[in-house]
């Protein structure tokens, strides 16, 4: 019963976006001998789900999402050593390579998607902004990615989403992974036209779509 109360507080700390509180609760769990994996999955993670839903509905905004994921990350950092000791691993749903395409330096949307994917159990490799097609290909090879996420915020750079897909094809890698695109000017139609597998409107939707892609 005590555990359940603590889990509830963890959920609340993530929803309220309180990194210090989250760290404190994670430590409390360790002292009480609570299974760290359970603390994450039943305590902190449900908070991220609530925040993600609020964001998709337009009730919560970028600062909320960022502070909540910061709280989540702080908690995981505290719990990780104990998880290693117990040889536990967070369930990895898949490996995602993500970045903003060449010529485009917009960071926020891409980072939000990366953060939400990581918070939801994906191993995320964020290549940053202004990423060339070859850099995407190299990273895909290096980590053996399941999914590639391509962000473009400008109507002038969205053509570079297609350039990455073409370069993946040339490298013979296209068939072994899924490609998802996002960004203000992108759309489901654009995804179809350039041969991407999916499009997502926002970071919350991206999590659901990428989950679907790795299961397919």
């Amino acid at each position, binding site marked *: 019963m005590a555990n359940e109360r603590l889990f509830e507080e963890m959920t609340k700390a993530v929803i309220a976006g309180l990194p210090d509180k989250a760290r404190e609760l994670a430590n409390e769990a360790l002292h009480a001998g609570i299974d760290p994996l359970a603390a994450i999955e039943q305590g902190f993670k449900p908070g991220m789900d609530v925040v993600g839903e609020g964001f998709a509905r337009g009730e919560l*905004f970028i600062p909320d999402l960022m502070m909540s994921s910061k709280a989540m990350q702080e908690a995981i950092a505290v719990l990780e050593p104990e998880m290693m000791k117990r040889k536990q691993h967070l369930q990895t749903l898949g490996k995602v390579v993500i970045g903003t395409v060449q010529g485009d330096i917009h960071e926020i949307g891409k980072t939000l998607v990366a953060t939400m994917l990581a918070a939801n159990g994906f191993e995320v490799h964020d290549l940053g902004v202004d990423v060339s097609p070859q850099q995407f290909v190299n990273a895909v090879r290096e980590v053996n990615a399941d999914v590639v996420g391509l962000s473009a915020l400008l109507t002038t750079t969205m053509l570079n989403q297609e350039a990455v897909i073409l370069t993946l094809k040339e490298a013979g890698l296209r068939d072994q992974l899924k490609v998802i695109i996002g960004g203000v*000017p992108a759309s489901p139609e654009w995804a179809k036209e350039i041969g991407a597998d999916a499009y997502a409107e926002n970071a919350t939707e991206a999590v659901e779509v990428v989950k679907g892609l790795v299961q397919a």
Partner: protein
Amino acid sequence: MRAQILQRLASGEVLIADGATGTMLQAAGLPTGTPGEAWILERPEEIMRLHRAYVEAGSQIILTTTFGGTRARLKAAGLDVQAGEINRRAAELARQVAGDPSTGSGQGEVYVAGDIGPTGDMMVPLGPLTYEAAVELFAEQAQALAAGGVDCIYIETMSDLNEAKAAVEGVRQRCDLPVFCTFSFDAHGRTSMGVSPAQAARTMVALEVPAIGANCGHAPEEVLDILPQMREAAPDAYLIAKPNAGVPRMVKRQVVYDATPERMAELARRYVEMGACIVGVCCGSSPADIAAIAAALRIG
């Protein structure tokens, strides 16, 4: 001697601002990935040609091509060391097209607004940018724009209320020009950082910013919901509407903004009915949109 821009607004006049810069410069050959600010020193004739096209279409306020002109933002293209020169020169180029302020230009009076956009960095605690550092970035830019002879400072596309405050404070540190400030409400009627039109308006009124409004954003129709909220929160402010020319779509490899000049003109008339006294267009627009708006507002 011509009237100052605030006197013109106080007299109840509606002033027409300009349209897009970035997409127009790209159409003129600016390579993708190169910021428009690079052309201020490299291709000043293209910058002046753009200003002239808007003035000929009917713009009475032209914005300097310095949206990404803070030192922080210019850094990505390695232009940060020239930040002061770029902003001052941009103001001079616009001034040259607008005419001499001591005599007024021949064809009606055109004002030069010194454009300031976000730094591109997130502020503490979400990102690395402290309030003090932000104030300094905006102060530097405003100082250079003022030195180049702008009539007012026009802060736009803000989404973080603290950054907007820092911008106003920075501008005021270095010049006594009128300051305008508009926000981009692109997330379910709020800014991406969650700021509502009423919050933005109240904050700007408290800082004695005389002209406030909405620019960029999502669909231009959304401004019809935003203006009344700002009006209610700031009954005495001059309201600005400068939305995108619709929502961008890719059609046959060409980017198309779905609002036609006729549609933008119709919307402009409705913005004015709702109390807007500065009307222009943001991304995806061209002098054709401004010409249509000018025709509609003059007849209407």
